[in-house]
């Protein structure tokens, strides 16, 4: 049984549930917009890293590890540019 449920996985799962509950704070407490966004962002990034490093084993293959990091970094760069660039051109910077 112990072999089937490695402690790291179980802890990771519990931690992800905790993070989801923490994120709920933004609807149950009267927080400012920026405080709420920070909470959501921190929780979401932690959750994503949890999946990435614990469950997806992103760092396990020595020969491609660097490539995988670069790939994710580039994807996140393009993703952020698309999201914030679109908001910048279509909403914030719009006359």
């Amino acid at each position: 049984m112990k072999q089937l449920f490695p402690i790291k996985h179980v802890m990771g799962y519990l931690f992800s549930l905790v993070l989801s509950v923490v994120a709920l704070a933004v609807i149950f407490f009267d927080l400012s917009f920026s405080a709420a966004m920070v909470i959501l962002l921190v929780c979401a990034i932690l959750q994503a890293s949890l999946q990435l490093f614990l469950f997806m084993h992103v760092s396990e293959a020595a020969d491609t590890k660097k490539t995988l990091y670069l790939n994710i970094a580039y994807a996140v760069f393009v993703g952020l540019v698309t999201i914030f660039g679109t908001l910048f051109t279509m909403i914030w910077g719009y006359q």
Partner: protein
Amino acid sequence: MNLDKFLVKGEPMIYAAMVSIVVASLAILIGLTYFKKWGYMWREWLTTVDHKKIGVMYIIAALLMLFRGGVDALLMRAQLAMPENGLLDAQHYNEIFTTHGVIMILFMAMPFIIGLMNIVIPLQIGARDVAFPRLNAVSFWLFMAGAMLFNISFVVGGSPDAGWTAYFPLASLEYSPTVGNNYYSIALQIAGIGTLLTGVNFIVTILKMRAPGMKLMRMPMFTWSVLITCVIILFAFPVLTVALALMMFDRMFGGQFFTMANGGMDMLWANLFWVWGHPEVYIVILPAFGIYSEIISTFSKKNLYGYKSMVVSMVAISLLSFLVWAHHFYTMGHGAMVNGFFSITTMAIAIPTGVKIFNWLFTLRKGRISFTTPMLYSLAFIPIFTIGGVTGVMLAMASADYQYHNTMFLVAHFHYVLIPGTVFAVIAGFHYWFPKMFGFRLNEKLGKLAFWFIAICFNITFFPLFFLGLNGMTRRMYTYSEGSGFGPLNMLATIGSVGLAIGFVILVYNVYWSFRYAPRDTTGDPWDARTLEWSTHSPVPEYNFAITPNVKGMDAFWAAKKENQPLYEGKIEPIHMPNNSGQPFILGVIFFFLGFFLVFSMWVPAIVTGVGVVIMLAWRSFERDHGRHISVEEIIETERKLGGDTV
């Protein structure tokens, strides 16, 4: 069933096109049957997973599309030759400039480049094939399905007519009620998935399949350019996928993304389109830079000047290419902050591009230059492309752009970038690698004749457009009055376009002539070149290299020739190769019909073909195909026939 929905009526030119399509298709079918080539077609081409054959098919498709797009261009020039010309009406003109743009960018430039990539990259890195040969065939057949679907729009249902950028609200169901823009969204979607898969395939190929000793910083420049291009493909094409899907929702399922009511935002389409569209420009230009680097280095008999700065500038271009898109719609009405930001990033991209221009010039310096056909294209590229680049910086200035926006100045600018940039490059690459594909060179005399026609007439066609634009002639206007004074320069441009067309006809004739009469190349290295693809036989055997080359430095083949470094060490071993498969072709056919049914909103057949796609995926998943081995005897036999000295 009501056929009126499908057939375009009342246009003599379209009737002529229908007849010629039917005649050409019949001729192909009858020819294949008469010469008993069906089995050959199926075994050797339709089911092939060989990167070289897939590359050749891409190039054939690209040449056909060049013809189609070229006819569109000639029709436009004919219409604009004189004031108040009645050759084409407004609607027909709209359709033609739309299909011209889409076909030239997505179905001519892209497949031509991907075709050259397919043929050259595995050879240049000393690999036996791409990382995923089957996926490569899937990419090709998806591209082909998309291209064919887009092309039939012309006679079945009507072409898209809202420009190649398909801006909303014009492209919405309300203002473009025909199925034309359904074709646009679905055909591009299918071809785009194929391109995305190509991107994944070639990144893995280049990162993981290089010959021993070929470190990243020893790769030929073309390989570098393709690696970076594929990275841009990987991250830019998903944006197009989404944009086209949203367009499909708006047009076919009542979506409100780009509408004028219910909160929709029409300019969001332009935004998403160009988030993909500007990186797309670099997707078609970076491999061209790689091709020029190879050619200029080979025919100057020197190694490439500033190798590292070439790589760094391409990486910089790839990142910057994602930061400039809003310069395509400065006049949309966003504030000074947005326009200022995008002006600066756009001008910044001229810096790495300038670095590359200087590197080519320094490579030429003190070189022993031989003026072959591919070299002529490369030499012509540098000054002409620089004109395109400089006018680009003019357009990059947001305040000045209010003057140039959507005028013929812009049309001249992007043709000055794309034709010497991409078209000259693929033609140069075509001449350069032709002996590798088929085992003989194209005729130099005809090649140079075509070059002079193309290079000179290109300038006659497009240089006048700069002045027409500055004088106020907007793009996409189907006619103009005599009083505008646009007549003479337009006539000049039309004359130039005829010369350009003659140049391309000579090019095609050259291929025909050379197939019949050109002397065969027995060396495998007719240009005295530098990189690994020239170290194997021409045409290349199925397995590429009998023994995997051992790379000890940059320009490994050159070093092997000049310093007598052995490239092939070790003995021949059985080679593992993938089996051919009909699945990619069948998948392409199913996608074609799926697309067709979606275009016409025929839901039941669309669902049936959609299930067909899922079945094909399952078939592939459950298949157990471990490929085959080519025996040592067979390799030795092939090598002996090809006159190899590696055995």
